């Protein structure tokens, strides 16, 4: 299987502070790769670099065998990014927001309509899509944003804590949706603090701490290696 995203020796410093001290991992086609690690480990920084928002200090990062730094416009066409803390334009109606975002990706009006309809179905917001985003609850906004990230069926969806702020049922729902899109061909790079979520969602996991990848593998591999019952124990034992 070929790689969608390949990261080698990636470093990132904010001034003197090294947020990433050289990390390696890859996201293979058709898989969900999850980064787990404590607060400040460098997850968001990694995802932002992959989403062409930040530039790396050193190292290589390729998307579909193309240099991500050199061809950000190519990458932006094919990925979608759900930021950790994101919002939508408050004065827009939910539907108008989806239409606006679809306007950047669709090749024609027909495709745009298809994107918007797909997103509307994901949000399950129904008539509320006709009201302004400013009136939505946190979870409703999150679902709207997730829907817009998936509606274009991107080659790679980069999701920073996709279910943060969602209730149990909505979180379950979102996980199902992500899995469905993976089946249809989208690869996913995500970060999460929810070990349950990661066990359910991810094909492979990268354990990250202080800007370094400590371990990579499938949840089962990691559990076996650390002689742990679940990922939470793996997390604790590898951070020690």
């Amino acid at each position: 299987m070929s790689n969608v995203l390949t990261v080698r020796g990636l470093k990132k410093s904010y001034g003197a502070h090294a947020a990433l001290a050289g990390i390696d991992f890859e996201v293979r086609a058709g898989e969900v790769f999850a980064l787990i690690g404590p607060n400040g480990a460098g997850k968001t920084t990694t995802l932002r670099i992959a989403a062409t928002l930040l530039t790396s200090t050193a190292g290589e990062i390729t998307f579909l065998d193309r240099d991500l730094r050199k061809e950000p416009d190519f990458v932006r066409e094919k990925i979608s990014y759900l930021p950790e803390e994101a919002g939508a334009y408050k004065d827009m109606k939910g539907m108008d927001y989806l239409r606006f975002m679809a306007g950047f990706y669709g090749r024609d009006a027909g495709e745009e309509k298809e994107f918007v309809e797909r997103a509307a179905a994901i949000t399950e917001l129904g008539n509320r899509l006709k009201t302004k985003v400013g009136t939505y609850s946190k979870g409703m906004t999150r679902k709207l944003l997730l829907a817009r990230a998936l509606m274009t069926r991107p080659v790679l969806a980069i999701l920073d804590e996709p279910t943060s702020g969602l209730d149990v049922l909505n979180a379950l729902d979102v996980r199902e949706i992500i899995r469905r899109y993976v089946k249809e061909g989208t690869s996913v790079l995500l970060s999460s603090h929810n070990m349950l979520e990661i066990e359910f969602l991810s094909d492979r996991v990268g354990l990250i701490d202080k800007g370094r990848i400590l371990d990579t593998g499938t949840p089962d591999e990691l559990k076996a290696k650390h002689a742990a019952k679940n990922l939470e124990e793996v997390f604790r034992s590898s951070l020690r």
Partner: protein
Amino acid sequence: MKRFKNLLQKEVKELVTKQLVISLAFTVLLFNAIGQISKKEVQKAVGIQTISVLDQDGSEGSRALLKGLESARFKIVDQTGKGKDEALASAKAGESKLLLVVPAGFGDSLAELKPSEIETYSFMRSFSLIGARGQVVVQSVISALNETLSNNFLAAKLPGADPVSLKRPIKSRDFVVVRDRTAEGSAGLIAGMLSQQSMLIPIVLMMIVIYSSQMVISAVAMEKQNKTLETLLTVPIKRTSIITAKMFAAGLVGLISAGVYMFAFKGFIGGMGEEVAAAGARASGTALMQKLGLTFDTTGYLILGLSLFLAILVALAMAMILGVLAEDFRSAQNMIMPLMFMVMIPYFISLFADIDTLSLPVKILVLAIPFSHPFLVSQNIYLGHYGMIAAGLGYMLLVFIVLVIYAARIFSTDKILTMKLRFGKKKAPAA
């Protein structure tokens, strides 16, 4: 192009809020109403006014005075026969703006060529300038009478001599020279009219700069505050397109709102009405300026327009950068202050000083501010300093290009997400 249009549409929609439309409409209505009211007041003041007259003299001289007032379109209420206090009280109770008392002996002392006194009592029921107009007109009637009387006197005492030249033995004919043209007229009048004309440039410029900059700053700051910037930056659209769409939208909406405000302001000023005398002076001044070549031809207007346009572009680019630096909407509002000062400085300097007579460091400072140049354009066109104009335009273009390149660089590096500047309040340190 489709993506750019998509973004531009959103930017314009975002800026044209209900509040903006309402405040624009409100301003237009308000200014218009004020204009209408003051127009009526001016008409009232210019129209026939009522004054009361107490003629205690009843001589030929006093009758001549009253006749003069009548021909100056005053409606005269005769209080003759009453005592002074009584006349005052009755005039005050009525509509009269003023009571004129001609004391007994007025005619006699006139005939004897002694100084003759009259008294005026103005009833100030309000303190507006228009309210005091009655007295001004009475004064001018009196001075016209003075002129006639003294002419008559001189003619009687010195027959054969021209009283006018007797009173003003030295006469000056005033000429104004501008470049190679000479015309008869007063330099003061020209300076007054020019400064009145160039007043308009800074007002227009300031309005547009303030509106557009505020809009472009908030366009960026709102993206940050609503946490939509990160998403927008991963969307397949060029960073320069994002910048241009925002600048274009802000420039457009700013220009339109400034236009609406100017229109409202004109209604307000227009309502004040121009006095017939002032209009006359203006007409003769305009003729004089035409003779001196102090008018704009099409090229002149084009140059001025280009200069204003460049100034707006510079302001927008600066605002863009300030907006990127601002953390949220509120600090963005504070960011606009330095920009406004930059427009104010050349304005005040142009009011009080002559750029050519400033000391060299101050002059360099003033010329370094891009917004100074539109102020200097009209002067330079009149004086034929085309080199200066070209240098000013070139300088503004250069500043604009540098700023846009800088803005685009910020937008395509980490800086847009990591750069932060705070004005005013310091954030409480994070726990």
